[in-house]
Structures are given as C-alpha cells and as structure tokens.
C-alpha cells in the first residue's frame, strides 16, 4: 500500500532537516511512541502503541534512517511487530526549498500482516496518513513554538 504526503514548514531546509533527525523531537511527535532508543548508526529501537479499528496493540520494532543527504533527502526503513501483527514499511523523504520555507514530501509503502491485516486492512491507509499528518503537524508546531 502506498502512502504519500506533502507538508510545508516556515523554515529553511537545514532547520527542518535538523528537526527531522532530532530523535527527541521525533519521539515526542510520533503518535503513541513510548520510547525510542539508539541501537546503531541512525538506527533506533521503538516501542509504539497504536490502534487501528478495534485493534489496539503495542508494537516493538526498529526505525532506521538510510542514505542521508543533508539537508535534501533520506530513506526511512521501519519494521515492527506486536500481538496484532507486523508492520514493515519504507519511505523516501525529500526536502525542497519553497517560497522561503521548506516542502517535505513523503513517498512510502507499508505492508501489514496478522490481525491488523485481517481485520484492519481497510483502515490502514487512512490510519497511516492520519498518523503522518499528526507527526508533521507536531513538528511544525515545535518549529514555530520551540519547547
């Protein structure tokens, strides 16, 4: 399943880039994120609680940032699993300067298995989009009103 999105920030690409690789900011903005701990180069162990339709569950997995080209692009590789099933996904994230700000585009795919695939498949696209929207809205908020 493909997931795409586009978000604008009132800040230059470098500032947005710094925010995107700031793990504290990412952990704080990722909906349902309980912890995010480094386990290697640009690789993190993540614990996340997420609800899709009637299926709420806790997922453990890894997030890895690859092919970092600051402040232009990187790839995100996500793997997670929990009682409700497994999630694997990846995406290309690009930053481009635009009208004095930055446009961030996300082009990703997600695969799920287990109960979430069986029962929640219809909703996964919209849940993933909603989570991504919330994540970027939170980051935009942080940029505007730094903690």
């Amino acid at each position, binding site marked *: 399943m493909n997931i795409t999105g586009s978000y604008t920030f009132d800040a230059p690409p470098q500032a947005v880039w710094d925010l995107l690789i700031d793990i504290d900011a990412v952990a704080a903005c990722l909906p349902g994120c309980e912890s995010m701990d480094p386990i290697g180069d640009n690789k993190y162990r993540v614990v996340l609680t997420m609800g899709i339709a009637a299926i709420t569950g806790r997922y453990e997995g890894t997030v890895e940032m690859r092919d970092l080209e600051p402040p232009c692009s990187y790839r995100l590789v996500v793997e997670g699993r929990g*009682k409700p099933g*497994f999630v694997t996904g990846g995406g290309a994230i690009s930053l481009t300067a635009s009208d004095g700000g930055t446009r961030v585009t996300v082009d990703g795919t997600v695969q799920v298995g287990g109960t979430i695939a069986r*029962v929640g*498949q219809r909703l996964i696209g919209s849940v993933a989009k909603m989570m991504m929207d919330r994540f970027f809205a939170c980051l935009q908020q942080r940029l505007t009103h730094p903690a």
Partner: protein
Amino acid sequence: MSTRIFGSGIRRREDPRLITGTATYTDDLTLPRMVHAAMLRSPHAHARITSIDTSNAAAAAGVVAVYTHADTVGALQPTPCAWLLPDSDLKVATYHGLAKDVVRYVGDLVAVLVAEDRYAAEDALELIEVDYEPLPAVIDPEQAAKDGAPQLHDEIPRNQAFHWTVAGGDIDAAFEQAEVVVSDRIIQQRLIPNAMETRAALASYTTATGELTLWNTTQNPHIVRFLMSGVCGLGEDKIRVVAPEVGGGFGSKLAVYPADFVTVFCSMRLGRPVKWTETRSENYQATTHGRDHVQQVELAAKKDGTITGLRCTVYAGMGAYLSTAAPGIPTILHGLMLSGPYTLPAVKEDVYGTYTNGTPVDAYRGAGRPEATFMLERMMDLLAAELEMDPVDVRKKNLIPKFDDGHEVITTLSYDSGDYPAALDKVLAHADYAGLRATQAKGPINGTYLGLGLANYVEMCGLGPSQVAGAIGFQGGLWESAIVRFHPSGKVHVFIGASPHGQGEETTFAQIVSSELGVDPNDVKVFHGDTDMTPMGWGTYGSRTTAVGGAALALTARKIRDKAKVIAAHLLEAAVEDMDYEDGKFFVKGAPDQHKTITDIALMANVAWNMPEGVEAGLEASTFYDPPNFTFPFGTHLAVVEVEAETGVVTLTRYIALDDCGPQINPVIVEGQVHGGVVQGIGQALWEEAVYDEGGQLVTGSMLDYALPRADMLPDIEVLSTVTPSPHHPIGVKGVGEAGTIGSTVAVYNAVIDALRPLGVTSIRMPLTPERVWQAIQQAKG
C-alpha cells in the same frame, strides 16, 4: 412400503436441542484435569523461520507447555493427503503438524501452547518470539504455475501439484469443424465455508492404558481415527473418535487438520485432556477454503445450436499444502461432470493443481460440480447469445432425453436415471418464462434491467462404489453400514457408520426404518458419530449419507423383516411361503386379521421362548452396502434479477429451484437442504470472496469484510421437484445435500449478464458486487 411415514414432512427431532441451545458440541465438553491449547499461526504468507524463542512464554503464569516442530520429531508424522490422484504426476508436499523452517500461508501452524485456562494460553501466545525472513508469495493459481513465480516447495517444480486430464471423443475435429465457437475466462473465486461451529478438538490420552479418546467436530470420525492412528502412532484399537453435535461443515470438516493431530500430540505428551477450539479468525485462515479456479473454456457447436465439443484448461489453487481430499475435487468431481445433462460428443480438460501461498483448499458444498456446471451453463448462454437463440432453446436442443436405467456420457460416467426435459419444462411453466421474457422485451424501467438466468445440472452423488474409489486414488472405501437392533419392547436402536451433522438423518433414518418395518418413527433412535459405538463408515460428504447409508439401513431393515416373517410363520403355524407382510403386520395370505406385529416378534425373538428350529435369538441385523454406481440427482434452476444500471445494484427478485433427488423421505428436510445450498451458491455469485493482498495477507479475515448472505438479501426460494428414482438404489433416493449449490451460482450469474446484454456486458468477475457491475457497464459503454 408405508407411504405415510416415507415422504412425510415430520419435524426434525434434532431441532429441539439445537434451537434451545442444549445440544452438546465439542467445546461444551469439560474433563477433569483438562488444559487448553492455543495455536500460534504464521502472520506471513511465505517466510523462513530464523529463530523461535519460547522461553518467556513457557515461564508465563498458567502455562503448562509450549511445543514447536522440534518437539514433535518422531512423535508426529506429517499430515496425510488421502486422495492420491493417479495418472496425474501428483506431488504431495510434506505438511508438518508444526511448521519446519518455512511457513507457507498466513495461518500455517508454528507452535502450540498449552495452559491451565484459555485466557492464559492466548495471553502467553504473544510471548513466543519468532523471527521470520519474509519470502515472496503467490496467491493466484495461474500465476503460481508460471516461470519465475515464487516457489513453495523445493522438491516440486513450478508449484505443480498435479496435471490431470479428462478426454473423450475427437476434440480436435470438433473444433476444426465447428460452425461456431464461444469461449470465456471464468474465475471461480476462493470461498470461506463458514460453518456455524468453528473447528474444535478435545483429546484425552490416558498414559496408563495407552488409549485416546478424541472428541472432534468432523464429518467422518472413522477416517479421523484411521489417519490419527498413522500420524500419532497409536493403534486404531486404542483410539475412540467421537463427533458430538457438529455445527455444520459443508466439506470443511471432511479434512483432518494439523491442529487436530497437534492437540492429540499435546495430550499424549502431557497425559492430560487437552482442548482446542478455533477462534473465528483462525477459522478464516486455517480451515480449508473452497473453489479457487481460473478456467479457460471454449465450446464448439453447429449453427442450429447443437454442441459438438468442450475444451478447457483449469488452474485449481490448492493452497500451500494438499488437504485431505483436495486433489479429487477439481478433477474427479469436476472434470467427469463436464457433460452435464447434455449430449456432448467430445471433451478435453486439462486441470493443473497448483500450490499457492493461500489456505489449503478442499471440498466445499458441491465440491467440483458447481465449477463444472458453471462452465457448461455459461457456455450455453454464450452460445445462445451468439446464435441469437433463446437460452432455453439451445439447452433443449442438447438435453439428454429421458432415460430410466443407465446412460453413458463422454466422460465415461454412466448416469443412473434422469428426465431433464421434464425438469426444465416444469420450471419454465411455474415461472411463466414466456411472460417474463415478454416483460423483459419491453425494455428497462427507470434504468432497471430485468434478467433471467437458467441452469440445468446433474451431479454425481452417493460416493460411491469402493472399487471406483480405489481406481481414482481415494485412500479408503466408500461403502456404508448400518445395524438395526430391536429391544424386547419393540423399541429400536439404529447404529450407522455415516456421520450426519445437521442434515436431519436422525429423523429421516427413523422414517426409513418405520417405513420398512411399521414401527413408530418415535420408537427408533439413531446413533452416529462414535467409533466405539457405531460400525465402520466413511463419512458424510458428496451427498452420500442417505444415498449410501440410507441404502445400508433399508437393506438391514429388510433382513429384519425376513427373519421376523420366519418367526411370525412359526407363531401362526403357517409356512413361510404363505406369509404376507403389510404395514408392520405379518399374516397368512388372505387372513390379515390374524397377524403378528413387528413388536410381537421383537418380544418373542428377545425372550426366545418359542423360536422356529434353527433360528437364532434376537432381532438384529447389519449390512455393509457398497453401491453399484454413483447416484445422479439433477435439476433446473431459474434466477430472476433486476439490475440498476446507475448503481450496479443487483436485486434477486425470484429464485426457482427444481431438484430431483429421487423419492423424498422427508420433503421438509429436502426443502431445507435446497434452501441452504441455493443460498450458498447465490453467495458466491453476488457477495462472497476470500481476498488476499499482493503480499498474501488474507484481508477478508472476518465477517466484517467477508460478505455472507443474510435473509434480508434474498427472495423467497420457490422449491419444486420431480421424482425420478435411482434404478440401482434400494429405496431409489439420490441425495440432496449439495444440490442447491450446484445450480445456483451460475443461474444468478447468467441472470445478471442476461440483464446487461442490452448494455453490451458479456463477462464480470465474481462476486457481482455493485462496484464490479457498475465498472463493467462503464467499460461496455467505452
């Protein structure tokens, strides 16, 4: 034969316990020291297991044991396939009880966990840590056969489980000389059987005696015992299999499953009773599915509508492993039925059974025959359209005329009896077919199009002669057995080998005994489904319980009658040759007032105070009945639909089902069977489909997404019948369990296409959801 009881729609004696919720199913049973199993199933369609860590799960509260494949080595043989199709290059993949190294479908068993209660078992299941390395998956049976497709089993090239062929007549000449050829590509989508009761097993192994009792929701307890013996290494004498109340099966409880064997393994290992009951989610993933054919079909004919040849290639998805009867379904039960009720001079079918990363596919109500009927009846409508003939006229041109005692068709089967034109005519008259066509000719009303869909069918039932079973690779016999035992008071116990599970044989079999011997049907109790109590039998499938088991019972009752007549003659001081029998009374010819009833005889035979010379005490008999041929029920179905072109919504406005199953023991039960079957067939046409995503995830994994028919989606079903007895059957009956399903899918499909003909639509992929119908209309518009 008494006509009052035979043919009477008396109420099903099964129903009070079923409708009051007091029936006992496997899951209702509780034994002392019983523990509960939960199954860990693969969330991946295809993956290598790189590690399994059960330590956290094993240490959790209430957990008794956790087992993986390594624990079962030497104790559990692979799950067998019991239909070893000959002359087909059959390759049976090893189907371990618990997966070894690789999982091949979502639902493949990885581990079993046993705990003191079900909740602890389910909770601890998620503590088992399995690392998978995902592998590419393939779901479509035709894609699976192509070069470069993901390979499921190393030793089986191109995922080909078998290649089976049926051929007769000169098919090449038929197509070379054809005046007209029609063809279609038909997808018989995957279906999920949805029995009301999910699968369950309660295994109780006693270490001290080495004996196992297994309560199992199954259609064939004796086959379970037979296979369990081989897989678990116990003597058949040490195994008792009981099928308590069984809440439907439709073929899905014919198979013997890894989870059954694994449950028994746990009980043997622990020396405690172990119960496993499938959740509905598990049922969707791990209980066998049905259909899954990709069919390429072409029909050769003359311009006057006479058909001359049928040629087809079918890719039949088997899922990841071969289930118990799987290879026989899209071949023997499908390809041999391709002549249907028509005179077909030439036929050729190639069936490729392919392994895919889906749930194993096995028999599902109709099992092969709906898929054959669909092909043939679809071709009939396409031919009619091509020749601008009425679909009725094309069919009438080709129907086999009435026959009473044998008719051989090109696929080598010999049909027993049939009157197909009479069935068709009766439906046409009942429906006012001409009137409906006249209404249709007036054109659509407010954008709603009327369509009529016909299906004639013949099915092979009453499986079947055991000699044939051997020849076609079925790893068992196909006879049935019955014991009839009269108690001193004249009450009767009947023990049958077949194992009904909802079809009402406790009632109809009492009616058979009552009709043959004149006892009150309420004095006849029918026992089934317990291998320690009943004689051997081969189970309930292929509409065979009454067709084969009923024959065994009728013949047994006649043996009782013969013995009773000898005793009656003795008591009336007459010669046996001078005796007559009518409605339960034995009397000297011409003197019916002086008679002995079967109840009188039962008392005398049991006390044995005054028996004829050389006649044994007791009034009991048994029969092992091996049928000389299959039975061939037939019928005609007509569906009337309205299709709204703007929305693609199909409304089924009338459904007429004529089924000729021979004489009807209980017409109310026959009607119920037809209703159920028809609805399942309509479900395939309009709503049901097991959908996998491109990665092999089952996305219709619950009733939220898998659309089962509901009462409010259906019209009243108008059930008709004709009665053509089977000439080779002791009471002429043919079987009716699957009849409704066989004609109904294509009848509805044909009706929808018929409605949309003015719009140029010729083919739509099932199920015919509003979206698909609407899309087809848009495409036809161009």
